[in-house]
Each structure stands twice: as C-alpha cells, then as structure tokens.
C-alpha cells in the first residue's frame, strides 16, 4: 500500500532460541491510530524497534512513511518520532534542554527548536518543570517528556511504546487525554500497550499479539465482542458460601461464573454493561445473599486472551490479583512488571 503509514509483512526476529517475532503482518493507514496489544514478552517492543530502524528483522519487510526500514533507515528516521520505555531522555539535562537537543538533532534551527520546546512543554503541562533536571521528575512527568520528545519534529509517524506502563491511574488518565487529542490531529500513531482499556480508548484498530504472532485484529468494538463482555466481579463476605452467590446470578451471565472458593471471589461475564445492575440487586435481595464487594469492569488482558484463543496469555505472566484475593477487585487490569521485549 503506497499511502499506508506502516505496512509490515511477515516480520520475524529471533534472539538465540527465542522467536521474538514470528511472522507479523500489520498495516496502519495514514492518519490512523493502531493499538498493538499484548502481554510482557509478546514481542511488542521488538516490533517497534524494527519499525523504528533500531533493529534489523531476520525476515519479512516493512515500510514506514513510504520507505523500507532496512534499505532506507535514514529516510525513515527523518519521518518518525519515538516515545518509549527504552528510548531515553538524559536525566542530567533539564526537560527543556532535552527537547532543544532533540529538536536540533532533527535539524531545526536553534530559534525554532527553542520555540518548539516551549510549545510542547506547555501542551504537555511541563512548563513549570521544564527548567528542572529530568532526574527530579516524577514517573508521569517523565512519560510526558518522552511523548513531547516523540512529537518534536511533528513526525508523520509516531511510535508510542507502552506510554502509560507504570503510571498511577491519575497519571494514566492525564496522559490518555493528551494522546487522545493527538489522535485527532492527523498524524499516524502506533501505540503498544498491555492495557485493553488503553487500546480501546486511543486506537481505531487493534492488533493483539502473543508469542510473536498476531492472534487477532479488528476494531475495538469487534474485539470487544469477541473478547467477551464486561465482567461482574463479586466478593462474598467471609464465612459465606460464594457458590450461593454464583448460583443466584448465574442466569444473568453470558457464560458460567468463575468461583474462587478460597477467596470468596466470583467473576461473571455479563452482556448489558451497567444496565444489568438493577437486576443484579433484585436477584441478590430475592435470594438473600450478601456481597461485600461488587465491580463491573472490562475483561483483563488475560481474560480476553482466554476468550480469543482458549489459552492463557504469555509465559511471563505478572502475578495475578486473584492469587492473593483482596476483597476489592481491581477495576483496572493487573499490572505487569515492566521489562522490554
């Protein structure tokens, strides 16, 4: 496709015995936002590194902004921006100095680099901190600076590699807001993430990868339908039988409820979203069953994988919250420990 921002065919990359990528095809139309969703170790970072010319694929081809990444890396580099967990900023420079340096290296004249740095610091709400050394920044400020660096040259193609991994919910929301505005402005964005919500919120098209292969592609709505509906997460009070709770509600689910007798936790896939809650309350009252916690949430990445593939995600799974079983079920997916590729 001549006008695709990114077109990759059969990308493969091995590191010793491990196939980090095993034949990945994907396409990002110009102006679109593509979410690459997958657990740690799925191959997301390897994919971004290849598309950003940092790594040569063993096989397959990729064009970014119209240029082949292996044959014309210099042309690609003039047209991309990269924000990610591994492409660093210098902690011993101030935010502003980092931005100006990157601007100069993109070839902006000094005055323009300075103006652009100030502009981006304002847009990403870093103005107050722009004069401070980056080593004093919080995680959220650091990520916003990463994003600003990626945007510096107003690149036609922007890579955002796990932009919110490790941020607290507040920082994540703030960054989503910024990235959402970005999507509305016509640059093509490839975003990798471990968070279903993030992909749904920011991307027009989602590719799910695991073990270096694409296991599903589609619009958020389609994948949402395939990945199963929302989950009703219920907690039985101590001393109560969670099977009674599950029994009272099982007719409302789109599948059998999962019951964890050790922790008293019940997870039920449901179809109608919040509309189902009055019915839940009515049935609980009728059956005389008590609950100590109730959350309606999106499926976690693991649950979506299970629905899409019939198999759990990834070999390097982060510790699951239901193993320790806190009563308040998280409304967000479980955090992974962060590691590249």
């Amino acid at each position, binding site marked *: 496709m001549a006008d695709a921002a990114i077109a990759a065919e059969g990308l493969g990359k091995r590191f010793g015995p491990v196939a980090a990528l095993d034949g990945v095809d994907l396409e990002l139309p110009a102006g679109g936002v593509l979410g690459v969703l997958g657990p740690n170790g799925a191959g997301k970072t390897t994919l971004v590194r290849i598309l950003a010319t940092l790594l040569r694929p063993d096989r397959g081809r990729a064009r970014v902004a119209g240029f082949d990444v292996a044959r014309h890396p210099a042309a690609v580099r003039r047209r991309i921006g990269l924000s990610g967990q591994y492409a660093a900023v210098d902690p011993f420079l101030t935010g502003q*100095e980092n931005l100006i340096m990157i601007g100069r290296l993109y070839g*902006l004249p000094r005055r323009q680099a300075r103006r652009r740095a100030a502009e981006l610091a304002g847009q990403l709400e870093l103005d107050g901190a722009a004069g401070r050394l980056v080593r004093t920044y919080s995680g959220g400020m650091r990520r916003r600076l990463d994003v600003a660096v990626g945007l510096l040259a107003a690149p036609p193609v922007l890579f955002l590699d796990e932009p919110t991994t490790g941020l607290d919910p507040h920082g994540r929301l703030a960054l989503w807001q910024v990235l959402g505005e970005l999507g509305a402005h016509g640059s093509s964005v490839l975003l990798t993430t471990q968070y279903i919500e993030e992909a749904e919120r920011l991307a027009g098209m989602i590719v799910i990868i695991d073990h270096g292969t694409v296991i599903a592609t589609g619009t958020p709505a389609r994948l949402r339908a395939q990945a199963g509906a929302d989950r009703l997460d219920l907690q039985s009070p101590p001393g109560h039988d969670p099977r009674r709770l599950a029994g009272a509600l099982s007719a409302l689910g789109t599948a059998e409820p999962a019951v964890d007798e050790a922790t008293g936790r019940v997870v039920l896939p449901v179809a109608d979203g919040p509309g189902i809650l009055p019915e839940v309350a009515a049935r609980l009252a009728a059956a005389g069953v008590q609950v100590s916690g109730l959350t309606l949430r999106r499926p976690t990445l693991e649950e979506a994988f299970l629905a899409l593939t019939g198999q759990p995600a990834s070999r390097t799974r982060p510790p699951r919250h239901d193993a320790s079983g806190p009563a308040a079920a998280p409304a967000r997916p479980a955090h992974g420990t962060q590691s590249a590729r």
Partner: protein
Amino acid sequence: MITVAGTAARPGRPAPILADTATITGRNLRRLVRVPTLLVLTTVQPVLFVLLFTYAFGGAIHVPGVARYIDYLLPGIIVLAIGFGSSQTGVAIAEDLSAGMIDRFRSLPVTGTAVLAGRVAADALRNLFVAGLMIAVGAAIGFRFHAGPAAALAAVALAVAAGLAFSWLNLLLGLVVRDPESAGLAGLFPVVILFFTSSALVPVATMPGWLQAFARANPITVITGALRALCLGGPATGPAAEAATWIAALLAITVPAAIARYRHAAST
C-alpha cells in the same frame, strides 16, 4: 491542543554532521559539570595528582640534568590525568547504551559519527581545561616552561591530541564491553600498566634491562618524552614527530573501529 502537522523536520537535508556534533558536545559538557563523579575527575583529581606526586615522590627522586622534579614530572602526570579521565568516556558510552540514549540517537536522523565525535570533542575541551589547571597548580609550586611560549602551546596541543586517541580507544572499549563498570576497568587497566612502565615518573635508564626495551617503546614514554622536550627545551622535533605518529596510528585504528562498532552495538 497538540499540533502535529507544520514544523516537520526537513526531509532530505544534507547530513549536517558538524551541527549535530556540536549539539552532542553541548550535551556532554553539561553532563560534565552536573554529574558529580565527572566533575571530581575533572577538577579535584588533576590537582591531587600534581600535589601528591610532587610531594610524595619529589623528595626521593632526582633526575639527572633536571633542577626541579616537578619540571620533569608534570608532563607525565598530565598524560596520566588525561588517560584517567578518558576511561570515563568508555563508561559514558556504555551507560548511554544501557540507558537507551543510543537508541534515542539512533532513532533520529543523526549519524553515529556525530554521536561519537560529540563525545570526543567534549573530552578534548575537558582535557584542555585539565592541562591548564595542572599547569597552573604546577606553576604555583615551581613548574616553569623553559622553551618559550610556542613550545608551551605545542605541548598543550600535543597533550590534547593524545587525549583524542585515548577517547576514541575508550569509546571502542565501551562499545565492545557494553557494561559501564567493565568499561571503566577496561579503560583504566591499560593506562595504569603503561603509565607505571613508562618514563612518566622516573627515567627509563633506572629500570631493569628487561623492562627498558618495553618502556622505551611504550607510547606513554614517547608522548611524555615529547611533552618534556617541549616544556624543558632541547631537541623537540624528533620526539614530537614520533608522538604524533603514535597518536595518528592509534586514531587510524580506533576511529573506524569505534564507528563500525557503534552501528552494530544497539542493533543486536
């Protein structure tokens, strides 16, 4: 609102390697004054070298034909201070590799040559400062140039040129070993070995016979000898040419090797 379109970097501009080198030099100079270790290596260590070697060894060592030991000593320890400082260059490039700065630079339209040259240029400015500082401290405790201002300038230039070769060598080492701590050791080891088997502290003639041959061929002896000739007077052209040959030979090997290594370092 985030503006994305508009200020795009000009595709197709010719590689402005000098401007990029200057930008990266500026970054490294800022780090030099902000990272405490680097600042100490640049300011405190050279002063300590002058004072410690002069007062600890100066009383015991008498070099025939030289009135004051510091006149004999200073050229050698300038080379030592520059050699020690250069080991930080290997550490820095290894840190940049592991911290992702090299990935950042490689994702930009910047050549590896500019990234490495910007490192070396910052080192050269640091070395100029170090040499000047050591000469100033040495002068305060008795050091004098005996061969006139032109020779003195030539001596400083030769010391800085030797630093270029050390920097490129350490860049190569840092890119090969990749781990910052190992890079520091790998950089210090040759300096320490070569320094103490050279004429930097004592005349080669005082060494046992088997060591003399090695000490005479040692590049630190050659470079120190040329610096000394330029500082103390006497025939300097021959030693300076020999030192320049050593430096040029080192650069001819390390510069292309380091650039080639950089291209591969992050892509594996």
